[in-house]
């Protein structure tokens, strides 16, 4: 199975977070592959993908990182995860995927995205249509988070 769509997703994540948060650098850890996604971080943003690639991209942020992101963007004191926070972070996921799809369309993958879904909580099993999920751990000065890619080009 080819996974040539993973790199454009990383590039888009890197670019959007840099623009919005002025992150110094995003370190990409080794990608792991799993068949079942169990949430290890509290704030999970799932963006559905349809078209030549089918499945979802899930951004998993620790609570503190999600709060920090929204604090940085809004310049406000943000103490807990609420609708405002999940919606702001959800839009971040939406923008990243939109950017990634633009690149992917140049590589002949024609896809659409569906609006972000927010899944809060650790240890939840997140069901994905694809058989394999690539977990890409990323390290930033805002914290560590994962981009989980469950896509199928079948």
């Amino acid at each position, binding site marked *: 199975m080819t996974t040539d769509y993973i790199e454009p997703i990383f590039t888009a994540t890197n670019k959007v977070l840099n623009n919005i948060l002025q992150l110094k650098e995003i370190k990409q850890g080794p990608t792991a592959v799993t068949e079942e996604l169990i949430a290890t971080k509290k704030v999970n943003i799932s963006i559905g993908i349809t078209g030549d690639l089918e499945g979802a991209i899930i951004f998993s942020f620790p609570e503190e990182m999600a709060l920090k992101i929204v604090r940085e963007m809004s310049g406000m004191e943000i103490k807990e995860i609420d609708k*405002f926070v999940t919606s702001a972070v959800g839009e971040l996921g939406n923008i990243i995927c939109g950017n990634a799809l633009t690149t992917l369309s140049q590589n002949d993958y024609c896809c659409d995205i569906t609006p972000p879904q927010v899944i809060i909580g650790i240890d939840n099993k997140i069901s994905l249509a694809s058989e394999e999920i690539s977990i890409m751990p990323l390290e930033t000065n805002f914290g560590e988070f994962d981009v989980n890619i469950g896509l199928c080009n079948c």
Partner: protein
Amino acid sequence: MLWKEKYKIGIEKVDQQHKEIFNRLNNFLNVVRNDEEMKSKLEEIEKTLDFMGQYVVVHFDSEEKVQQEYNYPHYEEHKEVHDRFKEEIINFKQEFEADKYNEDLVMEFSGRLLTWLINHVADEDQKIADYIQK
């Protein structure tokens, strides 16, 4: 929500408009997120929505005009993004009018607006600046 110097695109009028939008939205967020009851926020929310509805149209027009003046190659795509955003504000206004005491609805909209606007100004509008400078 803070304006940053790096958001400037180098066209005075557009930069001023961006600043104004950031300031207004900042006030809006402060109202939306204070601990008071929804009832006391309604007036300010309506005021900001009216302002955004009108001012954003004026601003997008100015920005689109600049793009045309400079023959910006991504004018059409950019205009499409603006049009979609204008539509979203109109849709939200309708939703809000129909369900004024629904705080979740306002929170959801504000969060999306925050991220959208920063990304638009920090990324998509910067591409205009990059092009003009070349």
